[in-house]
């Protein structure tokens, strides 16, 4: 095991430079070489997960044994019990879930309303305002982080869910992405609805939103995952277990159990498990969501 895994970038073997997008397999021998390279690469990708899981099931003496083994014996399930007793990971889950669900739904609500106005309604200053929105897309979050932190302190929102949710309930990027998509929906549809007496709100709710399933699904996954995995902002504004999300909780855990690798790895497994489970069962949606959003809707 160990000898084949020393080189994570195994995929760089010349064999994998098989150019062209040939639709049908042409070179069987070439494929075999490619498979070998891709499997080695896969092992390298999976090794950290395996190492995490293995360590999480070892006893401390097993951990500090040379040579290290990927198979724990005996298997120490107790580590997980010790981990959740040392740190309230259940609470962190709830916090993360609450924050991610709130951020995702609020962001989609506020952004789709605004995107609808930009894409479909005529009003003074529409282009100018949209340009202002776009201009801020380039500004990194870190520029606004410190003033936002001061604002949170000033509002006495430090270490509350407000601090975790409200500042991220809006997104220029989501407005941009949704506007692009909304503009692709034929205008005749909402004109027809308007002729039938539908208000703009009804057109948004009953024409545009139902027709935007793919982009909304993509954005939901993108925003949810981003919020669930977000680290820096929650690290800055939460200060107790009551508000810590999974990543911040795990970092806090590390701070306290610096060398208890069996517990730290058990905590890592606990932190990763829900997302990875959902990912394995909904791989296509995840990849689509992140690709579509990552490409800015192109």
């Amino acid at each position, binding site marked *: 095991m*160990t*000898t084949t895994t*020393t080189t*994570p970038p195994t995929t*760089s073997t010349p064999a994998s*430079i*098989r*150019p*062209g*997008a*040939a*639709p049908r397999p042409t070179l069987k021998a070439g*494929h075999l070489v*490619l498979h070998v390279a*891709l499997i080695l*690469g896969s092992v390298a*990708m*999976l090794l*950290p997960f395996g*190492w995490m899981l293995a360590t999480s099931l070892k006893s401390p003496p097993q*951990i500090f*044994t040379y*040579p*290290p083994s990927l198979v724990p014996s005996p298997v120490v399930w107790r580590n997980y019990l010790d981990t959740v007793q040392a740190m309230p990971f259940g609470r962190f889950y709830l916090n993360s879930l609450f924050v991610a669900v709130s951020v995702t739904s609020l962001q989609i609500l*506020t*952004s789709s309303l*605004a995107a*609808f106005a930009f894409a479909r*309604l*005529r*009003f003074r200053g*529409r282009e100018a305002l949209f340009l202002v929105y776009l201009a*801020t897309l380039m*500004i*990194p979050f*870190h*520029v*606004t*982080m*410190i*003033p936002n*932190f*001061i*604002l949170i302190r000033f509002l006495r929102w430090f270490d509350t869910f407000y601090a975790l949710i409200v500042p991220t*309930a809006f997104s220029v990027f989501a407005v941009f992405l949704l506007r692009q998509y909304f503009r692709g929906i034929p205008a005749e549809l909402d*004109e027809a609805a308007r*002729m039938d007496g539908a208000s*703009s709100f009804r057109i948004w709710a009953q024409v545009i939103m139902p027709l935007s399933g793919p982009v909304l699904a993509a954005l939901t996954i993108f925003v949810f995952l981003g919020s*669930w995995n977000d*680290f*820096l902002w929650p690290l800055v504004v939460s200060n107790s277990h009551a508000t810590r999300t*999974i*990543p911040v909780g795990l970092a806090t855990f590390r701070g306290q159990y610096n060398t208890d690798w069996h517990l*730290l790895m058990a*905590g890592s497994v606990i*932190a990763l498990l829900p997302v990875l489970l959902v*990912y394995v069962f909904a791989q296509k949606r995840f990849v689509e969501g*992140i690709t579509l959003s*990552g*490409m800015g809707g192109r």
Partner: protein
Amino acid sequence: MTASTSSHSPLPRWRRYQPDQQWEAYLFLLPSFAGFLIFVAIPVVASLALSLFEWSLLSPPEFVGFKNYTQLLSSDLVFRKVLVNTFYFIVTIVPLQLAFGLLLAVALNQGMRGLEIYRLIYFMPVVTTIVAAALVFQWFFNRDFGILAAAVWELGSKTGLPIRPPDWLNDPDWAKPAVVILTLWKNTGFTMVIYLAALQGVPTELYDAAKVDGASAWQRFRSVTFPMVSPTTFFLMVIQMIGAFQLFSEAFVMTQGGPANATLTIVYYIYQMAFEFQRMGRGAAVAWVLFIFIFIFTLVQTRLQRRWVHYEAGGES
């Protein structure tokens, strides 16, 4: 109810709704715009102003002019190191990430069996929490009990070569590559998937034509694949560069910026200034320097793209 809107007017249909749309539109915009104003627009201005002050939040802010900037750029040796580190990460991570991503995408685009499984595996790190990933890599790189070091020891003893594993995370020369490896592991799946989408848009006739002309596999890659995906390469280059500029969690969790500040990044420095040393103004100044760097680099890349990015239908000149 508004069935009375008969079509006697010569105006195009959409113009008739204009008057009431004005206020309606503002209502639709209100939630987003309020958030935008309070949490983005005003903080941007505030951050610029803040960078001219020295403020610990405990005592009243003190105006210092451009001192935060001039000190950063002239006498702050740590910041100089931070910049060097950041450039190191950019010039290693961005090209490697693009190369691996493209290589994997090209490999997977050969009509291979098991594409779904490979994609599942290679993309898995993208969805993982970086804190957990950084933790396991820290343990992975451990010199005495880490699996990587053990493999190197084994290799050394098996081959009789005098190779010894480096003390990755405690050696300033090795801690940076460790961060690079973690980042590559974490993000290569993303570039791969984006490239895969781009490759699927390349018309197969181009390859057929190249084959007819007797082009070798490498030539087909050079003169068909590479130019056809160059807009994607450009896009990925820009966003990966911005990502590399903003490296934080990897270093924060795995190396704590050390050893000897070898993995201290710009964002890490912002964090240190503001939240460890309580120097809000200095932190804001570093953030603005970051923004200016990102802005200039993106601008330069946008300029340079005209020389190498190939747009279909001759869009860009």
